[in-house]
């Protein structure tokens, strides 16, 4: 039996009647039209579906939608403030961290979660922090450099 799900997605309170078996990813994409979050494997292996649930990164393909009741979800579409890109988005864009773009939403979410808990991560910490996100295009090096750059910029701004 579907149950009422109420939650906040990228700052907006939303609700839907949701079958208990449905994943957060499916509800975000199909019910709420938040297609910025991608499905790459439905297996928690590729990280393309990563979102923040109350600030913590989860693979939304393997997270039941009803588990998110009352929580605040941040997707890639909620990173930019108004017309201003998040420093991570800008650094990815300017540093060659984006090629096909399919891993980018999950990669940005993982990076945002990493910088929230460690504003000054070592290269090794960045590489570990992003190890749950597969990218087949870039070889990761430009992504790691972009996170370093964004971290420095964010530290300077605070």
């Amino acid at each position: 039996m579907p149950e009422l799900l109420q939650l906040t997605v990228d700052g907006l309170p939303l609700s839907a009647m949701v079958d208990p078996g449905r994943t957060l990813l499916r509800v975000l994409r199909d019910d709420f039209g938040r297609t910025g979050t991608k499905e790459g494997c439905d297996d928690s292996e590729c990280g393309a579906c990563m979102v923040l649930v109350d600030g913590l990164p989860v693979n939304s393909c393997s997270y039941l939608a009803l588990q998110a009741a009352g929580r605040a979800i941040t997707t890639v579409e909620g990173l930019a403030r108004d017309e201003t890109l998040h420093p991570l988005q800008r650094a990815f864009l300017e540093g060659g961290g984006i090629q096909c773009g399919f891993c980018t939403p999950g990669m940005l979410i993982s990076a945002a979660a990493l910088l929230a808990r460690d504003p000054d991560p070592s290269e090794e910490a960045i590489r570990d922090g992003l190890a749950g996100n597969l990218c087949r295009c870039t070889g990761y090096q430009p992504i790691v450099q972009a996170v370093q750059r964004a971290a420095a910029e964010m530290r300077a701004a605070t």
Partner: protein
Amino acid sequence: MTEGNAQHPDRDGSPPDQEPATGSGDGSRPWIRADGQAKATGQARYTADLTFPGLAHARLLLAGRAHARITRLDPTRARTLPGVLAILTQADVPDLRYGSFDYVLDRTLFARDVVRFEGEVVAAVAALTPEQAAAAVAAIEVEYEDLPPILDVEGALRPESPLVHPDIDGYAHDPNLDPSGNVAGRSTIVKGDAAAALAGAAVVVRERYVADMAHPVPIEPHSVTADWSGDRVTIYSSTQVPFTARGKTAEVLQIPEHRIRVVVTHLGGGFGGKCDFHFEGHVAALARAARRPVRLVLSRHEEFIAPDKVTHAMVVDLETGVAEDGTILARRSRILLDCGAYASDTPVLGQIAAMMIAGPYRIPDVDIEAISVYTNRTPAGSVRAPTGPQACWAVEQHHDVLATRVGLDPVEFRRRNLVHDGDEGPTRQRHEGDGAIDTLNAAADRIRADGPLGPGEAIGVASGWWFSAPGASGAFVRIESDGSGRIVTGAQENGTGAVMALPILAAEELGMRPEDFAITYQDTDTGPYDGGSSGSQTTFNNGRAVVEAAREVRRQLLELASVQLEASVADLELRDGHAGVVGSPDRRVSIADLASTAHDGALLLARGSGLPPENPEHDASACVGRLGFESFASPTFFCHAVRVHVDPATGIVRTRKVVAATDVGRVLNAPGATGQMTGGVVMALGNATMEGTVFGADGRQRNASLLDYKLLTTADAPEIEVVFVEHPASNGGPRGSKGVGEPPIVPTAAAVANAIASVTGTRVRRLPMTPERVWRAVTTGDDGATEANAPFGPSEAALAAAGIGRR
């Protein structure tokens, strides 16, 4: 896409054609790809993100067995299930045989009578929900009589072997091929008399190398949505080759091409896995039958087994003779390529494999044979630099073995044998430039400068070449009334940025900035023909088309300016957004003003589609199975040098540093080209030590998920130093450029293999070089080349040989 944009569902997102490009090609300003902001913000819509009123959901019934006769196929009961709109089998589409390339016309859209690999499409369902579609697939009544799966390429060549295609003698095929038995095609590269030269050589080394199949694994799985309007269908597809998808859909459904529009909104990577014709025909037929738009999205498991595009499993026998000073005298080789159940483009890739086994080396006498062999495995095809990494991995290890035999350092051995400017290739094409030598020297110098080696570490190098692919390609360039520019192209952006960089080329011709141009692309109704994002050809071919169109617009602008400025065209230049008289800074008029004038008369509008460069002169008279790669056009030369750590106790190989040196002719977009190098190297490292498909004895894939088939992660990837060498090609792409996208994946595994041998003193002759295989080679001396395609993991025999009992 703008003019024909009325049906485009991506309008309220961020259409790929509306973002201006910025930056410069030389890296002096950040190059910001035009589609980057949409991708960074989640606005970019990929095929599976598109939705339509009344959208129905497709699901495929896949064979699930490698080789079987269909004794009963009855969808009657499934058709009565709730929500089912259509179920199609081969009985419901034109019953014709086609080839996904036209080398051998060996397949049908749906299986007819026999299934020949695990992922073969037997039927397709459209239903109101994905769950209803899955239920209907499960309810289709199908019975099989299993046939023995043919899984071994050498066994398949024996006269007594069962046939994958018993009717092959009746199949239409390319006139240069003679398919028969389990052989789809055979090509040779022959020069001189290799047998005689080998007989006279001081040292002859014979070896066998065996490579497993691997997958392209784009992070976006295949997706196709078809939407009919009257007798016209729009197909949104995650394809790298929209025009091929359109042409084959037209062929199999017998519809004229002009009634089919293929649109790619954004493509989530391809690596060759989305080349070729896949599911557009099935989904278009389903949508027509369901009378609604229908969307297919493959699961990751289906992505592994169904899109018949994997790298070739290969068996490479090599025999090379050298003089005492290490000069290569002759090479003989036989390459068996496992083309899987259908030929696809494997025959031509066999010819390419033969050229790769020859390599950019001076070899006076060459006799190389490539045989494409049918099996009941997943059909292989043009995955990024098809056959290149496996061939290079084999032959570059072979070169290190030869170097050791004659007592030479591997770098010195290559230095003595690589081609220089003016040397002749395996079919006597004349090489241009010293790119092969320069990249070797650069890579070797840089890796040695990386500091002393630690315990368990060694350096490995590998050199190679890869062709550029001349082909037809078209583009339009126009200037809008406000002076902004637009490129309309048939080219396809797969993520590399090749299409995104086209404005750099137009801007240079027109004295404008890249960000002054918008790009309309990947829509077959709008752009002129292009071969798609395959063969590293986008910049090479479409770049030339854009330059040609921009030059015509330049002529138009200068003519207009000559009237307005009362000056001769010969005295005018385009700079900083203006047309002006050379040497008279005050006498100039803006391109915006000229464009405004043009919109009262003859428009600023041009097309580009020049003849592609011809292949270099060569002599292929001794070669058979000639399919167009008897010579390599404007080859890219490269050398990768790696620093690798091997733990002999576990067989775990860690690559700590890679130097990738490449002669790309001319760097047109440094950030874009660098991104191809770093990405290619990491994909290659996965292929080197981790990525290989395991088949069971039943012919089914045993690791068809990302849980079992692992890619390198951020934590695994090494530091990569990218070096570009520039020897512009006289008959190349724009400004002498050569192909960039495929070369970086070719030599890395070979360099790693050579480093492994340096550390351990033992060769691993089986790809991928998994920890188990490395461990086994170190422990037992078994190089893996005779190993059956069974396990990731030590065999009982290997364990016994190592004195380890298995409880």
